[in-house]
């Protein structure tokens, strides 16, 4: 927007161009002020309506109490460490498992047909089941079998469920990336004497993965938020800590504190994703700016 502010009466500029520049400046000023006014009017009206609603005093007290925010925050923060641990471990496993599944789905060897079928069925079935239900099935169902050697820890099953569920989505992201690599790349690799596996490993995947980094990060943001689901299994993560505080005091501010912690992680990540997308577009010549 601010680039190329041409000097007003520099001698090198024709009168026509000067007029054009002046007109563009006026247009910019106009859209800026319209934007500012409409923003103030819209948000101001919303704020007025909320603040003047008959229940506002009660809502303010129970959702925006600074005392309760301060009192609940340390516990919630300690719970949030559990969220971070869970989603970091899960993300590493998901990226690996999904990549393997995606490669299997895109394999061409007739020998691998049963594996291919299995991977397709896995994605279809798991993607169709809500994560929360998977969590109940895995977290309460499998330990109840009381099998020898099967771990019994809540966090283990929480992470397993997230890995199982998210791998199905991320497999599809990888697959889209692999399929976006032009067939000629593979053909060229094969003609150079690379085996099918080698051309996947050294030619297709490096291009595919780079292309899907933004959607992968997008799924990572979703995973961070879904790490709150593991509270169901008894794990005291940030949301559960907040819920405990809320139930003790009947004041909802603690939820706000938990939301803030999630935002502190997801917003920078979302901005970073946007940045990567922009950079990629510039690189591949999609948009010049």
């Amino acid at each position: 927007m601010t680039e190329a502010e041409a000097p007003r009466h520099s001698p090198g500029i024709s009168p026509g161009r000067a007029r054009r520049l002046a007109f563009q400046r006026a247009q910019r000023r106009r859209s800026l002020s319209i934007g500012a006014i409409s923003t103030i009017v819209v948000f101001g009206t919303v704020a007025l309506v909320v603040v003047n609603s008959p229940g506002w005093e009660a809502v303010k007290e129970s959702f925006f109490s600074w005392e309760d925010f301060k009192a609940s925050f340390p516990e919630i923060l300690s719970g949030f460490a559990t969220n971070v641990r869970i989603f970091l471990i899960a993300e590493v496993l998901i990226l690996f498992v999904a990549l393997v599944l995606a490669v299997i789905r895109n394999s061409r060897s007739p020998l691998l047909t049963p594996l291919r079928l299995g991977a397709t069925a896995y994605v279809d079935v798991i993607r169709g089941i809500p994560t929360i239900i998977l969590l109940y099935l895995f977290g309460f169902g499998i330990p109840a079998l009381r099998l020898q050697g099967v771990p019994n820890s809540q966090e283990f099953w929480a992470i397993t469920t997230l890995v199982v569920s998210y791998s199905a989505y991320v497999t599809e992201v990888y697959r889209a990336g692999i399929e976006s690599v032009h067939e000629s790349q593979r053909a060229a690799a094969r003609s150079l004497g690379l085996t099918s596996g080698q051309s996947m490993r050294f030619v297709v995947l490096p291009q595919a993965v780079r292309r899907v980094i933004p959607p992968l990060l997008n799924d990572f943001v979703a995973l961070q938020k879904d790490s709150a689901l593991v509270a169901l299994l008894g794990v005291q993560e940030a949301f559960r800590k907040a819920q405990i505080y809320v139930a003790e005091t009947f004041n909802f501010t603690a939820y706000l504190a938990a939301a803030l912690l999630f935002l502190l992680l997801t917003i920078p990540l979302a901005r970073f994703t946007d940045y990567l997308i922009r950079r990629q577009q510039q690189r591949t010549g999609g948009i010049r700016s």
Partner: protein
Amino acid sequence: MKRYIALIAVLGLVLAACATDGGDGAESGVSCEKENLTLVQEGVLTIGTDDPVFDPWMIDNDPSNGQGFESAVAYAVAEELGFTAEEVEWVVVPFNNSYAPGEKDFDFDINQISITPERDEVVDFSDGYYNANQALLGFADSEIASVTTLEELRAFRLGAQVGTTSLDFINDVIQPETEPLVYDTNADAKAAFDAGQLDGLVLDLPTAFYVSDVEIEGSAVIAQFPTGGETGEQFGMLFEEGNPLRDCVNEALANIDLAAIQQEWLSDGVDAPVIALD
């Protein structure tokens, strides 16, 4: 911009103050005649409770059959206030919704809600209708079954439902070495216990007896803790803050024979060993 926000805020506060002032006209000298009661629905006593509800508080997940301790108490109160059984209507109120700000769609909520000073600031409670002892549920053949003191109990992995005084009891009184497991509902907590994910579950005593007798084979009430009693933990009915109906319900509660209802529906708990509080 800043001034604008401040202006909005001031305006809002003024308007809000005006809006809330109108509410509390009728007060004091409450008459508990049925036609003078303030009700959410004319001529009907609307009572809230969760869904599902469990034995022995209510039977067959049906609050309207008058069976189970809380259902029986609710109908006894309704009768005292002059309502027939047909004039009682039940609405589903999950525990976490019962204290949300805003208008309530029930006259009172009965759902084993413990009276605490913090909660009392946000809602109103009736007098206690039950003195709740906490109890420890464990498998009879497991290590926890031999525990006889609070100190020994600290080494075990315990669990409870979120928002319950059972959880507070674990945190404040038992203070276990490992962080307790906390579940959304008692049903989840029981499932985890049954799956062997925790050593012991803390519940109120009647629920613990029901679980050990009927629901989970091999489990037993390992101990009870004398947390109830006149000065201890009590269950109360929950009202919207300032609801004048509360005084009438208290009057009704004083007139009904709670001990007899308790005798009918709740185990007396004498066969569970008591672990003294320090």
